[in-house]
């Protein structure tokens, strides 16, 4: 009587070649990339992966051979990571973001963005009125290092010099861009986004405060009959920059709203859901701040004509608006190519 091989050994013998082949394909895919697999390997990868997961679930049921179960577990995990890898290339990633998902996220968040603009406007109006009544308010709103000599006490001449760039520029055009990147407004945008998660409060405060600074600056310039010139100086990058702050804050407000009113979801789930759009808003705001930096660093120093500044500022603003309103408009089904 010859003893037959036991069931789990036969199970292994029948499938071992396929497992080895899958292991080799996965190895090759990891090393050289999925796109460089041969035709046969690419065709069989998914098939073999399905078979291996099948073997794993059978082996768990029938086999007491620990080696096989453990091997299959790592093999399936490895193959799973290759089969379900993110298939992104750079151009596809960028084109999808800029052509579809970003403008769609902005359109979906129209309400919080409008709210952010309103809050900023409210802060500006309040500060304008307060500073008009008592110029000492200026010092309450503007930190010392940001004022750079501008203030209620400054002469009209000094203010005009800042506006039209006759002031001494120690760093030059690109230097101004560099300082801008780490400037006050970038920080405001970052914090208004990140801290919005604390029930919206920090975002609202930052929006009001940022509006207040704007309002008080406008007031001291209007006081010296430089209102229009100041608007020109501010507009060239301010339209983009203030919009970026509003959009970033809207992201923060969305997150805070999800924390306040999670609805039928649990709070973490609601936060994750709100995060999908909020993160896109943050990336959009980062792109806008980058452009605002270019406009401020280069545009403001090169272009000193009032009307040109106004045209560039609002022109760029219109371009942003067109992007948000017009890009990525298609059927609903196409709008979500994957539930990402």
């Amino acid at each position, binding site marked *: 009587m010859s003893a037959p091989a036991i069931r789990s050994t036969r199970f292994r013998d029948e499938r071992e070649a396929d497992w080895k082949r899958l292991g080799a394909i996965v190895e090759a895919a990891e090393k050289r990339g999925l796109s460089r697999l041969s035709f046969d390997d690419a065709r069989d990868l998914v098939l073999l992966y399905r078979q291996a997961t099948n073997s794993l679930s059978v082996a768990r049921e029938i086999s*007491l*051979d*620990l080696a096989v179960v453990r091997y299959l577990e790592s093999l399936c*995990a490895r193959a799973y*990571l290759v089969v379900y*890898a993110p298939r992104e*290339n750079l151009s596809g990633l960028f084109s999808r973001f800029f052509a579809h998902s970003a403008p769609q996220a902005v359109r979906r968040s129209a309400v919080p963005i409008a709210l952010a603009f309103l809050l900023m406007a409210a802060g500006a109006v309040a500060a304008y009125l307060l500073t008009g009544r008592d110029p000492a308010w200026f010092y309450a709103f503007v930190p010392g290092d940001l004022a750079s000599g501008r203030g209620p006490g400054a002469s009209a001449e000094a203010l005009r010099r800042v506006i039209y760039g006759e002031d001494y520029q120690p760093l030059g055009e690109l230097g101004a861009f560099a300082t801008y990147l780490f400037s006050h407004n970038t920080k405001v945008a970052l914090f208004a986004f990140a801290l919005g998660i604390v029930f919206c409060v920090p975002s609202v405060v930052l929006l009001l405060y940022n509006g207040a600074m704007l309002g008080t600056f406008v007031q001291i310039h209007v006081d010296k009959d430089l209102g229009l010139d100041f608007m020109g100086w501010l507009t060239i990058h301010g339209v983009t920059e203030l919009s970026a702050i509003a959009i970033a804050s809207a992201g923060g407000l969305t997150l805070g709203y999800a924390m306040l009113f999670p609805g039928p979801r649990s709070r973490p789930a609601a936060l994750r859901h709100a995060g999908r759009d909020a993160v896109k808003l943050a990336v959009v705001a980062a792109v806008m701040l980058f452009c605002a930096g270019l406009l401020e660093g280069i545009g403001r120093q090169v272009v000193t004509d009032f009307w040109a500044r106004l045209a560039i500022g609002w022109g760029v603003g219109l371009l942003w608006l067109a992007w948000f309103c017009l890009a990525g408009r298609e059927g609903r089904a196409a709008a979500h190519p994957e539930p990402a």
Partner: protein
Amino acid sequence: MALWRRRTDAKATAAARQRLSGLDGKRLTLTPPEGVVLNLDVASLGARFGAQFVDFVITTAATIGIVLALLFAGIVSGAAFGAIASLLVLLFGAPYYVLCELLMNGRTPGKKLLGLRVVSRNGSGLSTHQVVVRNLTKEVEVFLPAAFLIGGGEDQLWFNVVMLAWLLVVVAVPIRSKANRRIGDLIADTAVVLDPRPLLLPDVAVSAGEAARERFVFSSRQLELYGAYELQVLERLLRGGEEAKDSRERRQGLARIGERIRAKIGYEESVSPADEEAFLQSFYVAQRAFLEQKKLMGETRVDKFHRTQETQAGGR
């Protein structure tokens, strides 16, 4: 009291079983769309710190290298130089990590070096959104405290206090977390695991010679005593020293185990020391065939106390 003792007993054997199957450390359970649950080893905090450090060194070296190259090439003047440098610092922050993890399937160069990988916890593939989220939060979660620690704090007391509190939170969350997940991982619903390395060991049952299996025959009464746990201990023992096959120590160990098994199952024949391995191998094959047959019939025997899977699950 007796109940308590049984509980600790069960705990001890469960721990031993975990050690046996190499499951020490935290495990992460994923369910891919195929519906077959996969268990992955969670990356330790030390490994993750190491990977982050390697990435930090790489990005810093790249930044300094590019800046120095520009400096020596003399293409740019002082002002533009500052702009390019600060731009590089920004680009080698979150964008570097996002692009690496997207293009290298959840790995950065540092993670690849240490054999780590980011996976999505919901079992579908890693999405762009998840990668972006976990690396945007890295800015506030890793870089901000790191810069604070390197810079040595600022003048204002309240700022330092807030930063220290934040530092504590940032460190405490992954330690407390079940799968060593940091805040960014929690928000993005991802985890960092060790890269699985498939290694197929030979089947012990095959190495048992046919002659030996015919010589040592066991009755079902003799096979009824042990369970899967003991079987796998025996498997490990038999596999243990393939390379040190002839060492005396291994022989003695096998003889001791064989003696105990024979005493337990009431096997009457005596076995010469030279045949000990063959005896254990044939016992292993017979025992495994028996237990697998039982399992197929719906009777799972986890260990020699005849616990079934259900009571074991209830005891946990």
